[in-house]
């Protein structure tokens, strides 16, 4: 094919725009808005006036169409409807599994208790974590040596009894297993094993063995050696008891479910005799357990089964078991037994408050046991100090009081408090009262409580714990306004005297919340000063980072105004206590998060800026070679948030120098550098806006400074595409600000960077070909080039040529059409450049249209360039024809055809012929999309209707649609 002559079509952009623009339809604002409730009266009359606008109105004549969502539901939402339906159907629905039923039951019970009751499961983990030991533990299990049955089987014992007695002997025959020297973890594992073997025994129908396991386990609860571990032991073993209780209940429940399941709210009449007999049998068996503690615990575990026997069973059993606990001599064992009973009671029959109260009063009655000789002797032997010992009681007493105080009237609470007051040495109780009673109740009497705390014995329960508990209540409920300051003063007077830094910070941390909530920065500052004073000696803060962090969190929750925050003179010194890098960064991050969340207005407050710059620098400096990508990203996000919030208003120079400083500070975080470049570009545009587009000498110098900033900053980025895009963007900004040589430099830099683009880049951790990104960039670059005037000292179309040369030299992927695609997309640019007036220009910047004024030589130069490009494309098409690339050939040919159609002057015969050839080529192998072809033809037909494009209709005749083979 001979060389092609290029003639660009002459475009009249204004006229084209006019033609393409949709008919403007004035929208009556009062008429239709998609978000307005649709109120249609009669749509038909207005339809004429609304032509073209989308309208959701129908011809319905209802005056007010209701909200479609609510109309569907007739007032009830579907979820509650279903729930109601299933609730009413419950008795008739078949229950496939009892555990589902149980689950629901449990849920219902909890509902009865309410969500505001902190469940046991929440306490469990806390207790296990808190009460640990390094001492050796032992488990003593006497399997098979149960003495609770008739001692000597005589000849006449019935068969049933005999087999049972044999079973007793057989199982793990007389095995008295004593496991000594267990570490805590071993112990926990052993207990878990027992839990498992309980389940196994149960499922293999060895009910007697299961019962024995449970009895042996609960027997462990009477052993108070290694007393520090007792609360945790209690938690572990009551887990087993819970399992057992559940198993027994489910078993009996399933016995009644034959032939059809009994309803959840069954009554005694629904239970058949076999189930009753089995249930009764369990109770008889348990009643004959010799030892007090196992008998008590196991019976409590299956308390719920009383429902199968009679209506009043539970309410008769609870008081009896409560009284039974009086027989436990060891006060710690007794108090935990009470806690278990309260727990089961709350679960099974939350309405029976009396036995809860009775438990508490019994506890008070036997309270003096704690200070009895037996206990003291034991403590001496175990070398446990009184304060440590007393804290062992806390979880149980907390729990009992929590149950008692739950939705209890104030009168009752007051009575309980009075009773506690009467007892000597009541710090332990006082502590639990403050924990478990409603915070409002405690807060209202805070002054009284402080008085009581002061009266407590120094040697007993640690006072800082008492103040900690009080502070915890006051953090959620407010004491009377007038008492707040005295309360704080009194409390802090004690707290500040706490010697151990760990105890001190545990307590202080709680009180910070109260201080922040009710007082100003002055008081908080004082508190911070005190914390610093206590925590600095011997670097005590090193062991208290979690607490210090929590202090910081609380301050940040209450102080959102950063100028106030940073004007606290102790705030930054407090921040300095976080010396471990990871913690320090964590804290800085939390500060920045709060800042970003709550700072509404941009700021220029030097105090805030300085402090936050310091904070951000800390975060930035934590970045090193080992920092993971995500961490960097989140840090950068926070710093960017800060940078965006900095504004010096009209003081642009100040802002620029801030950016200079920030660049120096945050040089390791690329996203921050990018943000800074954007900020500076924005600054330049803002200047332009302020100056109304025409710069004074001073502002011109300033925007050049901005450009310089970007120009020297961009090369420091490693991401090649960030660099390219920023060059382009900064070039555009420079151009908009009439900095021609700067713009030129940016674009030149971009072109010179192009060869460095690697063939693959990593996107979200995966290697991807960079081609698509590169093409995108080049296209957007090309469209910018339209308005860039040629450099006076360089040749015509210096940048376009430069770009195309780079494209030519770039090592594209093998078998890639990318290069040719760039050539094809350069054609529209060149066509646009040869117009008399350009599609777009930049105000106050003369682009080539003005420089050359449509000089024929310039146009000829462009045409020559185009011809070269078309030649290249055609060559490439030929090579494709030879290979297996016919599909690619077709698609390339088609895109060149489209370009010719849109931008070439097809009156020229050669060009016209070329277009027709390309059309045929693209259809030759049947790889083209018929729909696109049809649409193209339609488009040509439409275009041909315009007088100046009438020649297209001739061409149309020569374009044939290939029918699919």
């Amino acid at each position, binding site marked *: 094919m001979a060389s092609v002559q290029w003639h660009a079509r002459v475009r009249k952009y204004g006229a084209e725009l006019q033609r393409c623009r949709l008919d403007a339809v004035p929208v009556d604002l009062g008429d239709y808005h998609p978000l307005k409730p649709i109120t249609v009266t009669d749509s038909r009359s207005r339809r004429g006036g609304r032509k073209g606008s989308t309208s959701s109105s129908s011809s319905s004549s209802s005056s007010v169409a209701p909200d479609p969502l609510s109309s569907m539901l007739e007032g009830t939402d579907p979820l509650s409807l279903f729930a109601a339906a299933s609730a009413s159907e419950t008795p008739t629905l078949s229950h496939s599994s009892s555990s589902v039923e149980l689950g629901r039951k449990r849920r219902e019970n909890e509902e009865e208790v309410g969500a505001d009751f902190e469940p046991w499961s929440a306490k469990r983990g806390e207790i296990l974590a808190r009460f640990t030991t390094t001492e050796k533990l032992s488990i003593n299990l006497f399997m098979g040596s149960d003495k609770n049955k*008739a*001692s*000597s089987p005589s000849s006449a*014992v*019935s068969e049933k009894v005999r087999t049972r007695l044999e079973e007793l002997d057989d199982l793990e025959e007389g095995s008295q297993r004593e496991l000594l020297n267990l570490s805590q973890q071993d112990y926990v594992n052993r207990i878990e094993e027992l839990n498992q073997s309980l389940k196994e025994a149960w499922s293999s129908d060895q009910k007697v063995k299961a019962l024995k396991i449970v009895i042996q386990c609960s027997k462990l609860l009477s052993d108070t050696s290694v007393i520090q571990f007792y609360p945790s032991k209690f938690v572990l073993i009551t887990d087993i008891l819970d399992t057992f209780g559940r198993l027994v209940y489910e078993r009996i429940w399933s016995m009644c479910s034959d032939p059809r399941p009994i309803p959840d709210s069954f009554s005694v009449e629904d239970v058949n005799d076999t189930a009753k007999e089995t249930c009764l049998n369990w109770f008889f068996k348990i009643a004959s357990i010799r030892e007090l503690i196992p008998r008590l615990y196991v019976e409590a575990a299956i308390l719920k089964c009383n429902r199968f026997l009679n209506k009043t069973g539970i309410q008769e059993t609870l008081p009896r078991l409560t*009284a039974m606990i*009086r*027989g436990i001599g060891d006060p710690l064992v007794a108090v935990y037994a009470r806690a278990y009973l309260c727990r089961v009671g709350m679960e099974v029959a939350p309405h029976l408050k009396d036995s809860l109260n009775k438990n508490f009063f019994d506890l008070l009655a036997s309270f*003096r046991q704690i200070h009895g000789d037996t206990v003291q002797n034991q403590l001496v032997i175990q070398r446990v100090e009184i304060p440590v010992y007393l804290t062992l009681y806390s979880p149980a007493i907390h729990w009992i009081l929590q149950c008692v105080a739950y939705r209890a009237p104030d009168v009752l609470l007051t009575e309980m408090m009075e009773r506690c007051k009467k007892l000597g040495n009541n710090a332990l109780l006082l502590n639990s009262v403050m924990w478990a009673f409603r915070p409002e109740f405690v807060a209202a009497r805070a002054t009284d409580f402080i008085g009581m705390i002061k009266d407590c014995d120094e040697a007993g329960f640690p006072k800082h714990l008492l103040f900690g508990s009080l502070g915890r209540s006051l953090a959620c409920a407010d004491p009377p306004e007038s008492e707040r300051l005295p309360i704080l003063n009194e409390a802090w007077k004690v707290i500040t005297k706490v010697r151990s830094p760990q105890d001190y910070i545990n307590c202080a941390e709680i009180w910070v919340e109260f201080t922040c909530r009710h007082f100003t920065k002055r008081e908080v500052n004082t508190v911070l000063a005190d914390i610093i004073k206590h925590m600095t000696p011997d670097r005590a803060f090193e062991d208290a980072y979690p607490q210090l962090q929590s202090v910081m969190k609380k301050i940040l929750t209450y102080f959102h105004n950063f100028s106030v925050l940073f004007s606290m003179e102790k705030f930054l010194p407090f921040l300095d206590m976080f010396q471990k890098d990871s913690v320090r960064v964590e804290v800085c991050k939390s500060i920045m998060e709060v800042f970003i969340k709550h700072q509404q207005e941009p700021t220029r407050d030097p105090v805030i800026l300085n402090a936050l710059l310091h904070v951000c620098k800390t975060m930035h400096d934590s970045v090193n070679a080992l920092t993971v990508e995500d961490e960097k990203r989140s840090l950068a996000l926070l710093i960017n948030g800060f940078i965006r919030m900095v504004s010096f208003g009209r003081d642009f120079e100040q802002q620029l120098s801030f950016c200079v400083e920030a660049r120096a500070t945050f040089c390791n975080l690329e996203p921050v550098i990018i943000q800074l470049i954007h900020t500076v570009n924005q600054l330049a545009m803002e200047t332009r806006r302020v100056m109304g587009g025409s710069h004074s000498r001073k502002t011109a110098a300033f925007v050049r400074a901005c450009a310089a900033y970007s120009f020297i900053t961009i090369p420091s980025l490693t991401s090649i595409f960030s660099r390219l895009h920023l060059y382009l963007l900064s070039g555009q900004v420079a151009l908009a600000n009439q900095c021609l040589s700067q713009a030129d430099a940016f674009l030149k830099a971009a072109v010179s960077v192009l060869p460095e683009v690697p063939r693959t880049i990593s996107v979200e951790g995966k290697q991807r070909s960079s081609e698509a990104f590169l093409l995108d960039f080049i296209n957007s670059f090309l469209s910018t080039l339209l308005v860039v005037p040629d450099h006076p000292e360089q040749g015509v179309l210096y940048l376009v040529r430069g770009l195309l040369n780079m494209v030519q030299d770039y090592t594209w992927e093998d078998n890639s059409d990318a290069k040719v695609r760039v050539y094809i997309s350069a054609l529209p640019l060149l066509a646009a450049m040869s117009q008399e007036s350009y599609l777009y220009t930049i105000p106050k910047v003369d682009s080539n249209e003005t420089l050359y004024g449509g000089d024929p030589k310039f146009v000829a130069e462009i045409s020559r360039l185009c011809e070269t490009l078309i030649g290249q494309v055609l060559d490439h098409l030929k090579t494709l024809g030879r290979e297996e690339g016919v599909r690619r050939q077709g698609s390339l040919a088609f895109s060149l055809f489209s370009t010719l159609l849109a931008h070439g002057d097809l009156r020229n015969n050669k060009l016209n012929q070329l277009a027709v050839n390309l059309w045929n080529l693209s259809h030759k192998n049947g790889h083209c999309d018929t729909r696109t072809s049809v649409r193209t033809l339609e488009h040509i037909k439409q275009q041909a209707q315009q007088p100046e494009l009438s020649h297209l209709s001739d061409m149309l005749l020569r374009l044939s649609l290939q029918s699919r083979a």
Partner: protein
Amino acid sequence: LVEVLAGVVVITSKEAVQHQGISLTMEGLVNLQLSSKSVGVFEAFYNSVKPIQLISSNIEVAKPGKVPGGKTEIPFEFPLQAKGNKMLYETYHGVFVNIQYTLRCDMRRPLLAKDLSKTCEFMLHCQPQKSKVQPTPVDFTITPETLQNVKERTSLPKFVIRGHLDATNCVITQPLTGELVVESSEVAIKSIELQLVRVETCGCAEGYARDATEIQNIQIAEGDVCHGLPIPIYMVFPRLFTCPTLETTNFKVEFEVNVVIVLHDDHLITENFPLKLCRV
């Protein structure tokens, strides 16, 4: 008014069974045994008292013939009528006295096939004996002075333990209840237990033997309990091993409860209360 023992004999087989008659035998026996403690070992072995038959009857439920394959149920009824001038006692399993009722089903089969036999025990509860039991509360106080058979009263630590049983004539289905208060004790208490004891007396020509054995032991207090705080006494009477107190010409079954207090220095203090059990 005579109660009946009613039920069905269930025969399950794959194919028809030939038999020479199926019969049911009901029997009630009191087995008495003399303990080796009361008499010599050999004597105990040989002289064990003859069992007393309380009830015995036999019926044929099926004449010789064939039982068809599958499941066959043959209903039956026995009137519970004691033999002669005897009385029916409640089922009781003890050490020296056992009262047991059994029902045995025999199927005689033709030559070369073993006869089949199946036995099961059935429980008898007495008719309520009295319409109402007057509770007879018992108060007790235990101090070193109240104790009997103490060798050196001076070496005993001082203690005062008070309490009461709500009743000593107890309804067998109701638990034994009461309260106990440790008012003071010089030595720490280790454990407080309730020991249920049966006292079985067997009479025979040579005299009679009386033996007390433990049925069960229930701990009601463990460790040094709080002084002054009442501790509940509560014990469920175990089934089978207890029955209403029984007194006949040949044997007696009686019950007692011991309140046992173990002190930390292993002193053992026991207070005995005879019980009278009945069923209402």
